[in-house]
């Protein structure tokens, strides 16, 4: 909200410059670290009779397996298990990271949800779309892929199908971004009011609690939706009966 982004320009070749948002990169790395630590620590002493965190990780695995199985048969979908697992964990953690606080240092916004940045979410969405097309070609061959992706159910729907691909990608990324960004904006507003004085603080305690709780819920739901839609798009390209 009016905070500047700490940007870093990496000149590549000619006059093309690759711009990094240092806070986004930082938060991405923190997210990845948190996810890795959770997964790594909870799978250290694996037992046939699972206890504690292993139970949780196995539940997550089965959950993602269920998502995949609801879209395609396990024989084709099994290869996306790890992708789905990483996606759901990464996005859920990314969504939650911005909730407890945000850090603004010298007017630069450093701590936020990485998924509150459209570049991040759209990158993930584009990655999913490209993967879907890649697997479509791999499973059906180029001809079969073109036919199932663009000419079905009717050949004259070709323009619509092309638009659909872009629309899917855009909505997949922007849905996540919009939810999380809006959540952070509202938290920022509430915090801003709470900072105005005693009256503001008293009046905002309950809304802040409520909105944070709701944001936790939304964070998980959006992670689930992103993973679910990923599998839906993959299934559209991969399975034979679509």
């Amino acid at each position: 909200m009016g905070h500047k982004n700490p940007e870093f320009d990496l000149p590549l070749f000619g006059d093309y410059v690759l711009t990094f948002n240092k806070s986004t990169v930082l938060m991405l790395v923190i997210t990845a670290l948190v996810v890795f630590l959770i997964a790594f620590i909870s799978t250290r002493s694996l037992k046939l009779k699972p206890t504690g965190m292993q139970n949780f990780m196995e539940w997550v695995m089965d959950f993602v397996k269920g998502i995949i199985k609801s879209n395609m048969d396990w024989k084709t979908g099994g290869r996306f298990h790890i992708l789905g697992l990483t996606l759901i964990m990464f996005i859920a953690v990314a969504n939650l990271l911005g909730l407890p606080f945000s850090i603004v240092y010298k007017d630069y916004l450093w701590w936020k949800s990485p998924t509150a940045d459209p570049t991040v979410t759209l990158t993930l969405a584009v990655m999913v779309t490209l993967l879907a097309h890649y697997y479509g070609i791999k499973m059906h061959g180029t001809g079969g892929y073109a036919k199932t992706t663009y000419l079905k159910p009717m050949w004259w729907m070709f323009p619509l199908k092309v638009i659909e691909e872009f629309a899917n990608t855009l909505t997949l990324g922007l849905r996540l971004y919009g939810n999380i960004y809006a959540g952070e904006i509202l938290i920022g507003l509430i915090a801003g009011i709470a900072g105005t004085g005693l009256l503001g603080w008293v009046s905002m305690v309950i809304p802040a609690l409520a909105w944070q709780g709701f944001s936790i819920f939304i964070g998980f739901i959006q992670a689930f939706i992103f993973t679910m839609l990923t599998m839906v798009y993959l299934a559209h390209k991969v399975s034979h009966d679509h």
Partner: protein
Amino acid sequence: MLVNDLVLGASGNFNGGDAVATLATFIILMLLLKKFAWGPLMGIMQQREELVASEIEAAEKARKETHQLLEEQKSLLKEARTEAQAIVEGAKKQGDVQRDEIISAARAEAARLKEAAVREIENEKEKAIAAVREEVVSLSVLAASKVLGKEISEEDNSALIKETIAKAGEAK
């Protein structure tokens, strides 16, 4: 700038570097997790699945085996029962036969004994009668000799008298 604001919201320009960073972070995270977390976890889940499957199979096998053993035991029991019945029946029959044998033997023995007794009695009677006859003869001879007063040789007359008495016995 205006387009950027409209499309991507208020968070700033589109940064190519962020896209690269996102992709790189995500892919590295995925590979690391695959190696250190998901792989082993999937392995252990697979292992458990196999264990459960094999346990179920073993239980099924044991159940079948038990069933078979039970059947076997049942048939054995049945066999033993019929055998026992046969034995009892045989024993009963044998007992019957033996009883009959014993009874008939006893009967035969009794008959033999009776017959022997009858014969003995007959013999004795015969003997007694002969003795009585002898006595009668000698008494008669004695009486006759006394009556006649004349010595008659006992040998000569005894034959005569015996004959007479035999005649008298037959006539009786």
